[in-house]
């Protein structure tokens, strides 16, 4: 279990995830993982097996890529994991498809239950398989109101809100 960050990066890449090592002093986390929606559960299981705890689940709204045929909604889910015994912090980001459905991880990390309910409240992302996706922070009367969705004129593309090196890699 004495893996270094570099080992973890290699391990995650071997497992089929896209992993980028980042500068902790600049960003506050060590690894950035880019997932597609089908990898979310696999990644959460891997993280759990390697002793990571779930820090938070959050939503994130950017302008959808127009050329992307797969039906990108522009919504992202950001997961953060860390370890109790080491200074390892991982950020994982998954894109939400047009159907707004992404698999739940609340059966792997029970703590994700409330985080996912909150994300549904604020962004309208549906976590499929979640046992109890009722409004948590917002009123049940406001179930269709998602306050953190950005208005069209305020939306920015993912490249505009990413670190410069990251956006270069994305355009390659």
């Amino acid at each position, binding site marked *: 279990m004495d893996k270094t960050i570099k080992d973890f990066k290699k391990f995650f890449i071997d497992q089929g995830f896209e992993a980028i090592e980042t500068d902790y*002093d*600049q*960003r*506050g*986390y060590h690894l950035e993982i880019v997932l597609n929606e089908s990898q979310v559960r696999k990644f959460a299981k891997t993280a*759990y097996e390697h*002793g990571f*705890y*779930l*820090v*938070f689940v*959050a939503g*994130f*709204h950017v302008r959808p890529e127009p050329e992307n045929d797969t039906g990108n909604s522009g919504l992202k889910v*950001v997961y*953060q994991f*860390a370890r*109790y*015994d*080491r*200074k390892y*912090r991982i*950020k994982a980001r998954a894109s939400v498809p047009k159907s707004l459905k992404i698999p739940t991880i609340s059966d792997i*990390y*029970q*703590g994700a*239950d*409330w985080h996912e309910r909150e994300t549904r409240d*604020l962004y309208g992302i549906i976590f499929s398989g979640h046992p109890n996706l009722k*409004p*948590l*922070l*917002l*009123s049940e009367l406001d179930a269709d109101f998602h*306050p*953190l969705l950005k208005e069209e004129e305020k939306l*920015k593309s993912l490249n*505009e*809100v*990413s*670190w*410069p090196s*990251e*956006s270069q890699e994305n355009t390659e």
Partner: protein
Amino acid sequence: MLESEYQEQNRFFLNMGPQHPSTHGVLLIVLEMNGEYVIDPQPVLGFIHRMHEKMGESRPCPGFMPNTARMDYVCALPYNHGYVSLIERKTGIEVPKRAEYIRVITSELNRIASHLLWLGAYLLDLGAFTPILYGFDDREHILDILESVTGSRLTYCYYRFGGVYKDIDEKFVEATRAFIKRLRKRYVIYEKLVTKNIIFIKRTENIGIVSPDMALRYGMTGPNLRGSGIAYDIRKNEPYSVYPEFDFEIPVGKQGDCLDRYMVRVREIEQSLRIIEQALDRLPEGPVRSKVPKNIKLSPGDCNFAVEAARGELSYYLVGDGTSTPYRLKVRVPSYSNLSCLPELGRGILLPDLVSILGSFDLVIPEMDR
């Protein structure tokens, strides 16, 4: 009457809160009961939800400073600390050493104040009325000390990007040293009054045991996690500010029951005092605020900053877009994750034990609801 019919008759729903004295804020817990046993406790949050994240995303970043103190109002300075450090990490603003020392001293004072308030309130939940009077007496000294330098007693807005608002003076140092001396003498009182009290022990020992695996699955942090024997403290594991310069220990419990969580907090008070003492001894001279551009631009890209608040890990996650307003600001608060284990932990226990567990979690409701 059949046994099953009798059981069915004993089943009922009980609403605990939103104004129940032991929920310390507006938290509703819908309890499915069987006689005096809790079958399924489901917390209902959001009564004081104010959408702090939206506020953070709709104004230039200095404007969010007052909000940081209004989440966890009992221990507000670490929330200030996390936010200023986040912006400093994002923009590369340098902080003078003296300012970091002052931040550590005031944050630790605030942590002690928070633990003292919790100690009194927890025992009040358990039916002991006297300790809260002692706890508030000691806490009052801290509030006076902090008021002299921050200007407020509860919802502090004292730190600034690149430093702190105001330098501390001789009077502050003297008052803090006098307080350290005073509080150490009071340990004996607390020990006699509470820690060795047989009723208190019966209400907390072996109650609400959180196993390390359960803590991991729910992402618990802070004293609630350390009660389960895991020495995880952001001040040590992911050192920030000038914490690496001080010698202090991370108290841990053995089995993770309410008594362990209590003991961890009590022992943490002494560790905080040690940090303050060392910081006062080595307090460097110099400015307390560096030059900061008037218009702070947040470059594109995301950034995270975690600090150890009195209740556990507080993380700010920010995404910048080149303007001075954050594009996304996520606040990860400790009590939210800590309480989320209640439906699992509270299954099949007695109602009075649930009160004991809730109190031992040291919940601050405005922090969870944000």
